[in-house]
């Protein structure tokens, strides 16, 4: 207890040294906590995207085959609209190996209608849909009725509020769970509502680029039967349906997961570099401290402090600096990561979904423990050398 109060006094009386040690460990903790939360968020985002893209193949009009723009619709919520005839759905179901298929229709709203910018409106067929519906169903208390919409979590509209899309009054009946993808910025409605919105858009002069009056869809999501070769079904779909391109969802996800692996690697290397550098600096700082404090420890030895007590004191001082630094670093990282999560997501251009609170708390606790351990570890040599100081020599040599 006496050595603890002496340790606290040492830390308070030497604010410069305490601040340097605390800031160094804070820097370490910031790098580790920040980096691990980003990597966890990216992994969770990819899992969420995989779950949302429950289909094996997506059929889109050939004009929309630029995979990048299609991918951007999922990742960034970029608005886009392309149309094909609804007969594509029946043709897809005729193809051998196709277990089920569900249509979706896309429409980009005008910017001023509800949200200051264009938003993507996605029409789904609740009876056939197997990709979006399970996710929507978790947040819905009733089915999507006429002119009802469910909004992604990034659309700031309250349940029960009326939003206007192409001057059509749509009632928000639910806000959906976050997915960390572009799907969070979209508005979902039934096909009947979508047809009314398409007609309203046409009245406003928005062309759908194919013959008006046809039943329009934008994409068909295909689930392949178990045991069937997805590539073979993909080729059959490409051959069987004209002016349509079948895209394997795996190829879309591969690009995303490759980018994610790249970001994860970079973050890991950066964390390792920061740790190595900071550990070396801490070792250096403690080596200098040994010189500076030799006389102080010699006096303590003369007044009866045991070697063990002195070693414990040094270790405790560094561990306390590690604790303070760890808490400071985690706090700073939290201040940057949580309020600016949207900005990070937009800058990385990858699916980004924050981990659950429990995991974040575990990461924070782990980081603080690691900071304490590294600070204590880097002072072990200094503790050993200081506890072995010969009082006579130290006092004679000191100036």
């Amino acid at each position, binding site marked *: 207890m006496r050595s603890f109060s002496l340790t606290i006094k040492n830390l308070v009386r030497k604010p410069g040294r305490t601040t340097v040690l605390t800031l160094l460990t804070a820097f370490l903790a910031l790098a580790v906590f920040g980096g691990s939360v980003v990597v966890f968020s990216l992994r969770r985002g990819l899992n969420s995207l995989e779950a949302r893209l429950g289909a094996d193949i997506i059929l889109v009009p050939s004009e929309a085959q630029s995979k990048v723009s299609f991918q951007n619709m999922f990742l960034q*919520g970029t608005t886009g609209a392309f149309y094909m005839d609804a007969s594509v759905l029946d043709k897809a179901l005729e193809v051998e190996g196709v277990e089920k298929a569900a249509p979706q229709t896309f429409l980009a709203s005008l*910017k001023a209608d*509800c*949200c*200051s*910018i264009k*938003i993507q409106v996605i029409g789904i067929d609740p009876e056939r849909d197997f990709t979006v519906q399970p996710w929507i169903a978790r947040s819905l208390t009733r089915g999507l009725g006429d002119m009802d919409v469910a909004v992604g*979590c*990034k*659309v*700031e*509209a309250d349940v029960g509020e009326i939003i206007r899309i192409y001057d059509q009054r749509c009632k928000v009946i639910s806000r959906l769970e976050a997915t960390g993808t572009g799907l*969070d*910025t979209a508005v979902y409605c039934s096909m009947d509502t979508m047809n009314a919105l398409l007609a309203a858009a046409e009245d406003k002069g928005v062309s759908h680029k194919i013959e008006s009056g046809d039943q329009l869809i934008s994409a068909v999501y295909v689930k392949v039967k178990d045991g069937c070769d997805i590539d073979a079904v993909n080729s059959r779909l490409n051959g069987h349906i004209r002016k349509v391109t079948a895209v394997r969802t795996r190829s879309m996800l591969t690009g995303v997961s490759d980018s994610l692996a790249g970001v994860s690697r970079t973050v890991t290397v950066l964390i390792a570099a920061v740790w190595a550098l900071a550990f070396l600096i801490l070792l250096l700082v403690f080596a200098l401290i040994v010189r500076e404090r030799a006389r102080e420890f010699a006096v303590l030895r003369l007044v009866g402090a045991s070697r063990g007590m002195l070693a414990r004191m040094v270790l405790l001082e560094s561990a306390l600096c590690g604790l303070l630094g760890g808490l400071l670093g985690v706090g700073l990282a939290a*201040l940057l990561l949580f*309020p*600016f999560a*949207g*900005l990070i997501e*937009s800058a990385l251009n990858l699916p980004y979904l924050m981990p659950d609170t429990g995991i974040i708390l575990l990461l924070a606790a782990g980081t603080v423990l690691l900071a304490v351990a590294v600070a204590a570890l880097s002072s072990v040599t200094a503790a050993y050398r200081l506890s072995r100081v010969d009082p006579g020599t130290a006092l004679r040599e000191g100036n």
Partner: protein
Amino acid sequence: MRKQIIPSIIILILAIVIAVGSQTFLSPCVHEDGSFATCHWAGQALLGLGCVLGVLGALALCVKRARPGVFLSALPVCILGILTPGTLIDLCRMSAMHCRMVMQPAMIILFSAALLCALTGAILSMRK
């Protein structure tokens, strides 16, 4: 003496960042056609609050005798600054937009930091 000057300098710097930021890198959204977005007025209010905070910071720095009162009067300004984007004045209705992604969190952090400084300054100057 020096301990009381530090909070006023920090408040002054934060106020400059708030005022300049609200019109530049922390600005509200801008439509492609140049029209005002919903969040434009929040940006204007933040510019005003940043200027008021700047004046208070400068007063705290220069007028020694008025320091406790100046620090105390900065508190409601900071609280207003925290509440302005999103609570008192509407922002755009999409979380992925610049005003919600950058302006709001940055302003809340900057005004919170100024609030802490003003509180510290008030305590230090009243203790004298």
